[in-house]
């Protein structure tokens, strides 16, 4: 049985001043080379103030909050919506809050609500996840 309670927040992750280098590292790691994420000339030509981060980079960082708590093998379902772009220099705070604890076939599942906000409190990502609780 879990020692978490509904409404409890997991240990958040803060990424200080995410950089273009962080975007490039993710492009290399994921194989997603959409130039909007690393080529300033192309990004600004289409009306953006600068390059912006990959949604799946924000999602990957969000998932760390979950895998740090439950372990990588516990993550069953992870869904995210990219609500606003992440810009170079943004400081991002990733939080996950327990919304339900369910027993199913003798196993305990934890449902969570996930959010990433920038330094101005603007939400860049929201989502939800289900993890198997093994504690």
């Amino acid at each position, binding site marked *: 049985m879990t020692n978490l309670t509904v409404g409890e927040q997991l240990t958040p992750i803060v990424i200080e001043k995410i950089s273009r280098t*962080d975007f490039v*590292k*993710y492009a290399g*790691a994921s194989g997603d080379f959409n130039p909007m994420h690393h080529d300033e000339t192309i990004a600004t030509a289409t009306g953006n103030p600068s390059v912006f981060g990959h949604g799946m980079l924000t999602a990957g960082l969000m998932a760390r909050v979950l895998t740090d708590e439950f372990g*990588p*093998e516990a*993550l069953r379902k992870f*869904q*995210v919506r*990219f609500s606003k772009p992440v810009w170079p220099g943004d400081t991002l705070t990733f939080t996950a809050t327990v919304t339900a604890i369910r027993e199913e076939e003798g196993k305990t599942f934890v449902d969570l609500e996930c959010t990433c906000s920038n330094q101005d409190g603007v939400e860049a990502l929201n989502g939800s996840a289900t993890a198997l609780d093994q504690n």
Partner: protein
Amino acid sequence: MSIDFYDQIQKFVGLEAGTQDGHDEVNQAMIRHWVEAMGDENPVYVDAQLAAESIHGERIAPPVMLQAWVMRGLKHRPESGGSPQDDLMNVLDGAGFTSVVATNCEQEYDRMLHLGDHLRTRTIIDSISDEKQTALGTGHFLTTRVEYETLEGEPVGRMLFRILKFKPGTGRSVSTEEESPPRPLRPRPALNRDNQFWFEAAKEHRLVIQKCSDCGVLRHPPRPRCDKCGSYEHGAVEASGKGTIYSFVVIHYPQVPSFDYPLPVGLIALEEGTRLVADLTGAEASEFKIDMPVILEWQDLDPDLTLPAFRPVKL
């Protein structure tokens, strides 16, 4: 958007967009790049000895990395003879929807991936939205369903991925605030002694209706004399804010910079019996219907102007 174009893109829905094999097996080098990009220090991804002593018995790949194992890379898309997904992207590009941004991702994991797993994807075009005006621009949401399995056919996970294909430069918030001129205010109402009370009440979030003090008939818009009995004496009552759409228009042109377009404007039949013209909010312009029940929502547009708007009642 023409009906023909909508039909043309909807033909792709439900099509199998083909299978694709990962270029490489799940491997330590790519996992290391990934965990470094994520700042993830869990040793089970990279430390063979610690991983061997863990419940996994060997190194594993981070779950969210699923998508990366069958990434196509930035190869040139074939102009013809590609998969249905290629063809659909070409059709959208050809219509000017050349930019792409990811909007949603849902992943499910059946098991951990280990070094040496070789993945294959099967992609199905799940849905294509009609044309939407978004902050980034005018575009179509395109959702694909991707099944991940090993080359041996064992399912390991699945992903629903939604992108927006949009026309660059058609958005509302693409430029920074410094670059874009401040948005002009809404046109001012022509205030006079007869209608001032109505706009003053609106500032206090009260929707009022003028009422003849002699015969009691309600009237809108405000005017000095009762149509029914001719009296010049009047007061006001507060409306409930409930009504139905008596009629409406969706304005596309000409565009005034202080409004968002397409702009749905309704003639609202209040339950008290009078009608008024107001913005319609809370739904896509195409979703409003005559007789639709609506409810009042105040719009504080600027410090000097508050106007009523109406949104569909959620049933």
